[in-house]
Every structure is written in C-alpha cells, then in structure tokens.
C-alpha cells in the first residue's frame, strides 16, 4: 500500500494508462482522484534543498535500485532506473547552472519537459529526439 504522499502520481499514472486504452471515463476518474491527493507541502523549500534531495537519488537510490533490478532481472525496473537516473542528473545540472547564472541562463529561451521520461530541455525549440528516451519532439510540453 503506497503512502498518501505517492497517491497523486499513482493515480495520474493510471489515468494516463486508461487514456492510452481510450477508456476516457476511467481516465477522467483517476485524474480526479489524483487531484484529491495533493499531499502536504513542505514548509521551507529552496532550490538548494531540492538539489540535495535530487543528488541523494542520483548518488544513492538509483545505484541501489540498479543493483536490485539486476539481481531480480527485472527489465521494467532497469529501464525506469536508467531513464530516471539520467533525468535526475540533468535536473541537478539545471539547478547548478541556474544557481551559478541566475535568470541570465534563461534569457529568451524556453523550458521543455519530455512527457515520456521527464527530461528537461532549455532552448528555442524542443530537441528532435529526446536524448534520454528517444521520444519525438511532439512529446515535449512547454513550461509556462
């Protein structure tokens, strides 16, 4: 049983899965459930504290899961861990670049997120192919 903290993501994932099967009513219901579990927001949050959490995943959790996934020969876990480790590493790098340069880093550039794997890209247009999961540019959303 997942803790309440995870339920928003569990349900939004099930909503996506239902949508792919074109079960639109089911997708809508899971989306509404997801919104009903917003979780508790942490009191003091800074880019620095977020960086520390992301770094912990990169340095500790992903390597541990990689080992556990290899031992269980679980291809699904290994795929998720491989993408997640790359995406998290890129998150950490983005925080570091932004911390060093501030808003100059952004200039007129846009931020895109790959909806398939979570990879964040800073540029004028999304990449033709996601460097992490190989999804085409149409899978990138623009961050408003």
């Amino acid at each position, binding site marked *: 049983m997942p803790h309440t903290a995870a339920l928003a993501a569990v349900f939004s994932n099930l909503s996506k899965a239902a949508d792919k099967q074109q079960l639109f009513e089911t997708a809508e219901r899971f989306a509404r459930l997801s919104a009903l579990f917003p979780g*508790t927001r942490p009191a003091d*949050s800074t880019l620095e504290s977020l960086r520390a959490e992301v770094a912990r995943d990169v340095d500790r959790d992903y390597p541990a899961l990689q080992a556990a996934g290899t031992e269980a020969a679980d291809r699904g876990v290994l795929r998720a861990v491989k993408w997640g480790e790359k995406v998290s590493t890129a998150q950490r790098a983005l925080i570091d670049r932004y911390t060093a340069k501030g808003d100059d880093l952004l200039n007129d550039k846009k931020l895109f997120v790959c909806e398939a794997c979570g990879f964040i890209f800073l540029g004028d247009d999304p990449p033709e192919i996601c460097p992490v999961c190989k999804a085409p540019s149409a899978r990138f959303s623009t961050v408003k």
Partner: protein
Amino acid sequence: MYASRNIRLCNKDCVCLFVCPTGATDTETGQIDRLTCVDGCRVCVDACPSHAIHLVVEHYPEPAPKPPSLAEAMMALCERKSEQERTALVIADAAPTAGTARIARALARSARILAEDCAREAGYMIPQCDATRELMGRIASDHDADIRTIAEQLAGGTALTR
C-alpha cells in the same frame, strides 16, 4: 478484441468507413461501435492511413510479479519524487523572479513524470490489475465521501476488470 479509433490522429471520413464489414466504424460519436465490431477482424486497423485505429485487448494478463522488496523500493522512490514535486511547487509559488518560478515548475513536472514511472514499476501499471483493484478497495474504506464515491465508481464498474 475490438477496434478503437484515436480521434486525435484520425483525419475523418475515409477508408475505415468503406472497409468495415459491419458498419461499426460509421457512427455519429467518432468512436467505433464495439458491439458490432467483429472480434479480431482488424481490417480497418490495417487500412487506416493515419494509424488511428488499434485493437483493444479486453483481457489483460496480470503484470509479471516482482519481488516485494523491489516493488517497495520503487514505491519509496515514487514517494521521494512526489515530495520533490511538491518542494518544487512551493519554490515556484514563493519564487523571487519569474525565471526561478519557471525553473521550479519544470522541475515539478519532471518530478511528477519520474514519480509516475516509479508507480508503474511498483505494480500500478494499468487499471486492470490486482494491485489497482486492491488499492481502490482501501481508498474507498479509508477516505471521505468525495474520494470514496470515485473509488467505488472505479471499483464497481468494469473499468478495473481484466
């Protein structure tokens, strides 16, 4: 198996209407009529120039079982990524500059997608699986009316049946 049209890809009014032996593709709703669709026929699937039709599997196999410790570890990471999403949202709301807010919203969206991927690999892959059904049962008994109503609608219908 029955045919299902993805209206986001369909260019409308073309070959599936002519090739279907039963007229199941010719409806007012944009959806293919699953009751008149011939099980496994797939003529329209192969004919559609937009790759807008696929066959829907009615009975999904249970996802391959994982060692419980591995599923739990993926769920623990799902929780961490969910918490990082919320941290990023708090940063976005209190951001001193529009740039910081944008960076934080990108990080929040990215964290949610990672959390969803972990949820999938923790066993909550599709609506039609034991883990999802069991979760719906628990949600229905543990929470207030709004949540219970939706959980019961999901658990009561055919939505979660394999």
